[in-house]
């Protein structure tokens, strides 16, 4: 299964948006720290991996995996 560059880029922007909005809401005192942290715990890993995918996805067809001698 291959993901399109545009799809992973969208996932990245959604993840980054959740991180920024959660931090902003905490800063404005609208949500407590644990709620902000809970959102970041979920969004941060997704954001990071989708960022990596967004600069790699669709760039190549993949190598032939090593299957032993």
């Amino acid at each position, binding site marked *: 299964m291959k993901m399109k560059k545009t799809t992973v880029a969208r996932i990245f922007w959604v993840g980054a948006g959740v*991180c*920024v909005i*959660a*931090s*902003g*809401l*905490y*800063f*404005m005192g609208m949500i407590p*720290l*644990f709620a*902000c*942290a809970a959102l*970041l*715990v*979920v969004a*941060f*890993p*997704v954001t*990071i*991996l989708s960022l*990596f*995918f967004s*600069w*790699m996805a669709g760039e*190549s067809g*993949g*190598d032939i*995996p090593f299957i032993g001698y």
Partner: protein
Amino acid sequence: MTSRSSGTDMIAELVLATLFGLLLLGLHRKLIARIQRRPGPPVWQEILHMLKFSFKTTWIPKTASPVLFVGVVLIAIGIWTAAFYVLISGGSLLVILGIYMLHKIVEHGFGLSSGSPYGKYGGVRSVISAASEIPLFVSVAVIAVYTRSLDLSVIMQYQQVHGPLLIIAFPAACAMFLVILSKMPFGPFSIVEAKELVSGYKTEHFGIWRAGLEICNGLKTFVLLAVFLAVFIGLLSLPWLLVGMILMIVLLAFACAVTPMMSPFDSVTIQMLVTGLMLGYAAVVLMVVHP
């Protein structure tokens, strides 16, 4: 560490902690190499590793369970992100203890998800190496006897009044140091990463999955060292916290460089012996502090 962060700080602190943790791991490798009279990689090698893997072609092996294979990477970063926020909010040490245990389950998941025999053996060894967490339980019990709380903020306040627990409960600090040593790469208890298992539980996680694992390792290193300093030294300003972490890495690097990796059996035996000693110490502390 107990002050409330502003909104942007919440993300910036997380990213900087990850990068500093990776830098500490690089310093760890460099110091081990220099002690062993090798040139070693540059200090920023782990950051380069993370970036390098993020540019590698990535796929999911045919033998893997795709959901678990990808899910464990997300969970690994997620649990240490949670540990980081527990730390900076001065939350419960019990939650961090739970995350230390959870990390072993995640390592197990890494190994089993790929379907590779090397990964599976690495996963099994990570379960065996959970024995290294038992001295931690006793350390935490001793801390609770002294401070009557397991909240990091209360433990730090206690030390502002009574002095560092490093002096008051030195054996507990040694036991927790052993726990950190067991989680460092190239250490005597690093049986999950032994060379006969290729790369152990992470053998099949390459490319972007490995880059995610590197991020997890950076954050884990930062949290492990910062929690140790918070529990046994107390509240530190940021520069002193960073200096303390570098000093701890120097100590850990010396311990790793001069000690050969043990067999799984010896590793567990030593950790159980330490646990026995710590139980005796905890009983004495309990009788002296609360007669």
